[in-house]
Each structure stands twice: as structure tokens, then as C-alpha cells.
């Protein structure tokens, strides 16, 4: 039996301009096949990755933000967003994509994947991880 490890993908960069956000998302989707305890953290400019209403026509890159809505299907259901990072950018939870998942253990009830956490709480969550992957 392989042991289940806690993996956290830490996303700190804006979605476009560098390839980090897209790479992170692809690794998450691939890694989801391995049945580990996976969570994602969005902080600093990383919070822009899951903003609503992205339009990439002007930058000539594919808008991959709809893919975050598929994370629930991949059983990736813990998306931690740092409250301070949102506030520093004048954003609120309403500016983010309404990401949901269906809880298998609760009669497939639809639940929010995004959890707002303080900087201090996020630091604690990071402490608990076996593996942190920074993007």
C-alpha cells in the first residue's frame, strides 16, 4: 500500500505573462490520478488566476480559466485563497470563479471548493503538508 501524502500546490503568479499558472494547473490535473491528499493555495498575484471574466483575446493566449471549474471532477476540492492577498488587490470572494464540487459522502451535495483563509491560517496549513510545490 502506498502511503497518502499531503500535497499543496502554491500559486503566487498572475495567470498570463509567464507559464507558471498553466503549468501548475496541468500538474494538478495529472497528479490527481495518484489519489493523494491535494490542495491548492492562491496568494499574492496568484489570486488573479481564479478571477471571473478573464478575456485573453488581447494577449493572444488561451484562456484556461474555465478549466479550474473541472477541478471538482478531478476530486481536487480544497482551494485555499489568502484573504490578505485578495484585499491588497481590492478583490473580494465575489470576484472569483464560483468553483464547486459534489460531495460524494454527503449525497453529492454541491459545495464550494474555495476557502478563504488568513495569512496565518495558510502558514499553518503549509506546515501540515508533506510536499509543497511552488509555482
Amino acid at each position: 500500500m502506498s502511503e497518502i501524502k499531503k500535497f499543496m500546490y502554491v500559486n503566487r503568479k498572475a495567470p498570463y505573462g509567464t507559464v507558471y499558472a498553466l503549468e501548475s494547473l496541468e500538474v494538478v490535473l495529472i497528479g490527481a490520478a495518484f489519489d493523494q491528499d491535494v490542495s491548492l493555495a492562491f496568494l499574492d498575484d496568484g489570486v488573479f488566476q481564479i478571477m471571473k471574466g478573464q478575456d485573453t483575446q488581447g494577449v493572444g493566449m488561451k484562456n484556461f480559466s474555465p478549466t479550474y471549474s473541472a477541478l471538482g471532477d478531478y476530486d481536487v476540492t480544497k482551494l485555499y485563497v489568502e484573504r490578505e492577498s485578495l484585499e491588497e488587490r481590492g478583490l473580494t470572494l465575489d470576484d472569483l470563479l464560483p468553483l464547486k464540487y459534489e460531495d460524494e459522502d454527503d449525497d453529492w451535495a454541491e459545495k464550494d471548493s474555495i476557502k478563504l483563509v488568513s495569512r496565518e491560517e495558510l502558514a499553518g496549513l503549509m506546515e501540515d503538508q508533506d510536499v509543497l510545490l511552488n509555482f
Partner: protein
Amino acid sequence: MTLEVNGKTFETDEEGYLADLNDWEPGVAEAMAQAEDVELTSDHWEIINFLREYYEEYQIAPAVRVLTKAVGKKLGKDKGNSKYLYELFPYGPGKQACKYAGLPKPTGCV
């Protein structure tokens, strides 16, 4: 590589996946299936169309596990299992059905 369908030429990658999914038309799926000796039935089309809708919404080709679950939810439990999907697409519902649907190879599929 290229694929000829009804006098039109389509660009594909080295594994036969369509280079630009916007070029797709049903004839592309027919031609790809024919090359693999598969006769497309309405059951095949149901999955191909499902994949195209999935891509339209999420911008990815789903992993087999995810496809199976999603098909089960949308089309019923008798279709949402790997036996059913592999019978339709013996080369793997991820790879083969996505190819016919004009989608890229599923992320993480080798």
C-alpha cells in the same frame, strides 16, 4: 501529418490528433474511425459529442476516470463505466474518442 476528408486537408500532429479543433467536422471523425476499422454508431457519437461539449465548457479533454464519472451522470450509470466505454473505443476512450472528437490528447495521457 495531414488527413484528407472529402477533398479537404486537415493538419494533424504526429499521433493523428487534429492540430486545430476549430477545423473539426463530423467527416473528420468518420475518416479517423475508418482508418482504424471502426464503424461509428450513435453510441459512439453520443460520447464524441459529449467530449466536445466537455471541452467547450472546461477547455480540457478529461481524464478517463473523469470522463467515466461525467458520462454516468449525464447519460446514465449503464454508460458511465469503463467496460461500456472500452467496448466502444477499444484503444481507450480517452485517446481514441478524443481524437475522433478533434480534441487534443487528454492531459497526462501517455
